[in-house]
């Protein structure tokens, strides 16, 4: 009825866009301190990005085929960075939620939260890069 191998490519763009734009909003909030909505937007985009990353990661695990040869090596690298992305997003999200609940968002701990968010944004970019390499350098016909 519906080819399940389509799920992963359909869903991967969500964490890339949500996490990167969320981080940019967070970064902008450092310069535009009066705009409280920027940090709030960054926070909610982080949570949505984490949920979408979990979904994208799951479809990658369950609905993609094994590859071998040179393509297999790229896929392994892509998978490693996918794990790193998901891990850093979960840690960043939990840390931010705890900061909010304990009213410690204004303390120096906010820099730890920022660094975790930056790391997650870097990892999602690298994961996306290798995913794109896999598609365009190995899976598209000549």
């Amino acid at each position: 009825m519906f080819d399940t191998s389509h799920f992963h490519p359909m869903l991967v763009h969500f964490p890339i866009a949500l996490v990167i734009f969320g981080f940019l909003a967070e970064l902008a909030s450092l310069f535009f301190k009066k705009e409280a909505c920027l940090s709030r937007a960054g926070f909610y985009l982080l949570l949505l990005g984490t949920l979408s990353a979990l979904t994208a990661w799951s479809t990658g695990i369950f609905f993609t085929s094994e590859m071998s040869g040179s393509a297999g090596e790229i896929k392994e690298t892509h998978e490693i960075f996918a794990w790193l992305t998901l891990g850093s997003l979960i840690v960043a999200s939990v840390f931010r939620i705890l900061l909010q609940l304990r009213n410690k968002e204004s303390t120096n701990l906010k820099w730890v939260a920022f660094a975790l968010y930056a790391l997650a944004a870097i990892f999602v970019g690298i994961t996306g890069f290798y995913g794109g390499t896999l598609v365009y350098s190995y899976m598209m016909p000549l």
Partner: protein
Amino acid sequence: MRNILLLAFISLLAFTGCKQTTPVKTIENLKAGIKGETTASAKYNAFAQKAREEGNDTIAKLFDAASKSESIHAANHTKVLEELGEKMDVFTPEFEVKTTAENLQAAIDGESYEVATMYPQFIADAQAEKVEKAVKSFTWAMDTEKKHLQFYTKALEALKLASEKTLSFEYAVCPVCGNTYEKASMDENCAFCQTPKDKYIII
């Protein structure tokens, strides 16, 4: 601000108007690759006939599958060459047909050279000259030749032990990248390019 934007726009036009350098080495390698793969395809076809004459039907099937695979590699290299605006020189494949055991050894030697030396260099040259399609075509060919090498080595062992009947009698070849499978071990999607198995060519 307007002047800055105008300057940026003119710079962009100037940059995109620059003539790209001709990937001389990659063109040379594509031609060498086409010659090699076309020759290999014709050679394996002849080896298959010899294997049949000697009663080694399973080995003949292996050569048939490899011949098809090499023709796909040649077609891919040709496509990339033509997209670069070049044409392949006319040539006649030259090779020698001996006994099946000698032919298998010759195939092993040929594939070993391609895997260890020829294609890694071709890929490096294409990467340096930023011809991505050539990198892809060479990579597909190299990955497939590694599998051919394994098949040929196994076949030669079987021939020496007089157990060639245990070899696979059917093979599947991916029409996009030339990846070759024993039919019993096919992946749902090609492991190199993800082409679905219903598109495979069954030999």
